[in-house]
C-alpha cells in the first residue's frame, strides 16, 4: 500500500512536469517550486554532513579532546580551521565595512583552480592531441582528420581576416564543424529518447501495470 501511494505521488509529479509541454500551468508551477525547495534543503544538509562536519567541525572539536583526526586533512587540527575561516569570510559581504575580505576566499579558490587547470589542459588538449594528430598521411582517413583539425583551428583564428589561404582553411573548418554538430545532434537523440522511454515505462509499468 505504501509503495502504491509513493508511486502515485511520483506519477502525479511526473505528469505535472509533462503538462508543461502543453503550456505553463499550476501543476507545473507547483512541481517546479517543490523541487527547488526540496533540493535547497537537500543540498544544505548534504553539504554540511559531507564536507563541513567531517573536515571542519569534527577535527576542530574532537582533536582538542585528544581523539584521532578524521576527514581528509592529515595535518594538525588547526589546519582544519583555515577552510572553516575561509568559508566564514564569504559572509563578511553582509557587513559593508569588511565586505572586501570576502574576496580572499574567492581569490584562493579561483586562483587555485586556475593554476590547477592550466597544466592538465595543456597536456590533454594540446600536447597529447599533437601526438594523436601527427598521423602519417598515408590513408584517406588520416588525411581527413588532419585537414579537419587544421581547418577548425583556422576558423578560430582571430587576428587576421579570413581571406586567402586562411579563408579556404576556415571554410573547410566550418564544413567539418557543421558535419560534427549534425552528427552529435543525431547521436544524442537516442539517449534522450531512452530517458523518455524510462519515464513512460514507469507510468505504464510501475504505476498502471499496463505493460
Amino acid at each position, binding site marked *: 500500500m505504501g509503495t502504491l501511494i509513493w508511486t502515485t505521488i511520483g506519477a502525479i509529479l511526473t505528469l505535472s512536469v509533462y503538462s508543461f509541454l502543453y503550456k505553463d500551468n499550476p501543476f507545473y508551477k507547483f512541481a517546479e517550486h517543490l523541487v527547488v525547495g526540496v533540493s535547497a534543503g537537500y543540498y544544505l544538509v548534504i553539504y554540511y554532513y559531507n564536507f563541513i562536519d567531517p573536515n571542519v567541525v569534527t577535527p576542530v572539536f574532537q582533536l582538542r579532546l585528544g581523539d584521532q583526526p578524521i576527514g581528509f586533512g592529515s595535518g594538525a587540527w588547526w589546519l582544519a580551521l583555515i577552510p572553516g575561516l575561509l568559508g566564514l569570510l564569504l559572509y563578511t559581504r553582509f557587513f559593508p565595512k569588511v565586505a572586501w575580505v570576502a574576496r580572499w576566499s574567492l581569490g584562493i579558490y579561483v586562483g*587555485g583552480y586556475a593554476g590547477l587547470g592550466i597544466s592538465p589542459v595543456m597536456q590533454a588538449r594540446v600536447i597529447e592531441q599533437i601526438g594523436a594528430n601527427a598521423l602519417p598521411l598515408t590513408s584517406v582517413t588520416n588525411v581527413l582528420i*588532419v585537414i579537419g583539425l587544421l581547418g577548425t583551428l583556422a576558423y578560430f583564428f582571430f587576428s587576421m581576416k579570413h581571406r586567402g589561404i586562411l579563408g579556404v582553411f576556415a571554410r573547410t573548418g566550418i564544413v567539418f564543424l557543421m558535419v560534427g554538430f549534425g552528427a552529435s545532434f543525431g547521436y544524442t537523440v537516442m539517449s534522450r529518447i531512452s530517458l523518455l522511454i524510462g519515464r513512460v515505462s514507469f507510468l505504464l509499468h510501475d504505476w498502471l501495470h499496463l505493460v
Partner: protein
Amino acid sequence: MKRTWLTFLAAAAVATSLLGAAVAQEAAPVVEEEVPREDVPLDTVAPAAPGALTARDYLDSNDAGDKIELDWELSPDDGAGSCDVAGYFLWRSRSASSPGEIVAELPSGQTHYVDRNLEPGAEYFYSITAFDGTNESAAVTCAPVAGRVNLFQTSRASILALMLVFFGLVLVFTKLAERGDELFVRRIPGLNAIEEAVGRATEMGRPVLYVPGIGEIDNIMTIASLTILSHVAKITARYETPLIVPTARAVVMSAAEEVVKQAYTEVGQPDAYNPDNIRYLSDAQFAFAGAVNGIMLREKPAANLYMGAFWAESLLLAETGFEAGAIQVAGTAMVSQLPFFVTACDFTLMGEELYAASAYLSREPKLLGGLKGSDWMKVVTIALVVLGAVLNFMGFETFVNWFRTQ
C-alpha cells in the same frame, strides 16, 4: 585523490599483466599440480631459498620517491631441481631485527617487483622467501634502501616547454599592446548580437535574462561569463532595462551580485540595481533548468543570453526560450552542447570565441595581447602537427613520442 587513483590503477594494471604473463607461462605446471592431489604423501621439504636479492630506488625520475624496485634470482627449485616452487613471499620491514610483513605474493618464475606507495625517503629492509604451498624456504635479505625524492617530473618536460612558449607569446603581445601597437582582432558575430538583443528588449520594455551556466566558479567558462556579464550589465544599466541573472551555484550568485552592482555603479545608475534579480535557484541541474523555464514564461524576457558551462539542460532552456519568442545568444565551450545551441539560438559563440569575447569586449590592450598570443600558439600547434605528420611518414617517431606524456 585522482593521482592516488591513477597510481592505484597503474599498479593494478602492472600487477595483473605480470600475473597474467606468469599464469600463461606456468599453465602446464599448474594443471599438473592438481592431479596428484591425494596420491602423493605430504610434502615436508622446503624449497631452496631464492638467490641474491637487490633493492634500489625505482629508476624513474618521475616518482615521488615512494617506490622501490626489487630483483632476485630464482630459487634453484623454481623450474628446475625439485620443481615445486609455487611462488615467492616478499617481506618488508622498517627495522633490521624483524622480517616485518608480507607485501607481495609473487608467482614462480618472476624475478622483479616494484613496491609502491612507500613513505618517501624512509629506509626499508626487504627479504624474500620461496614457498611450495606448504613450506617456506629460508629468507634472503639485502641492504636497507630508501626511495629518492625527485623535484621535477621529466616526462612532463614537453608540457612545461610548450607552456613557457605560450606564456612567452602572451606576455610579448601584451607588452606590444601596452606600448600602443595596433592589434587587429576580427569581429565576432555573436557579440554584436548581444547588443542588438539587449536593445530589442529595451524597445519592448521587457527584461534581459542572463544565465551564467551551471559551472562552479572554478570553471574558466564561468569566469569568462562573469566578464561578459559585466559588459551586459553596463548596457542594461544605461538603458534601464531589468537584468535577471539566475544561478545554480551560490558562489557564482554572490560573484554575479558584485559584478552587476559594480557595473551599475560605473555607469552612474547605482539605484537601478535590483538585488532581487540576481537569484540562486538550485544546485540540482534540472530543478535549476525547470525554474529558469518558469522565469522565461512568466517574466517574459525579450533577450536570453546563455554564457558559460552548460550540460544537458542547454536545449531545455533554448527551446523554451525560443517558444517564448526571445532573441537568444549562447556561448559555451562545452562541445557536447554546442550542436543544441547552434540549432536553437540566433547566435552562438563557439569554444574559444567565448574566451575571446571577454577580451574583445573590454578592448583592453592587456586582454587583446592574450588573444594574439593564443593565435600564435595555434600557428605553433599547427606547425607541430604538420611536422609530426611528415616525420612520422619518414619513420622518425621520437619526435611524436615526445608528446606522449604521463
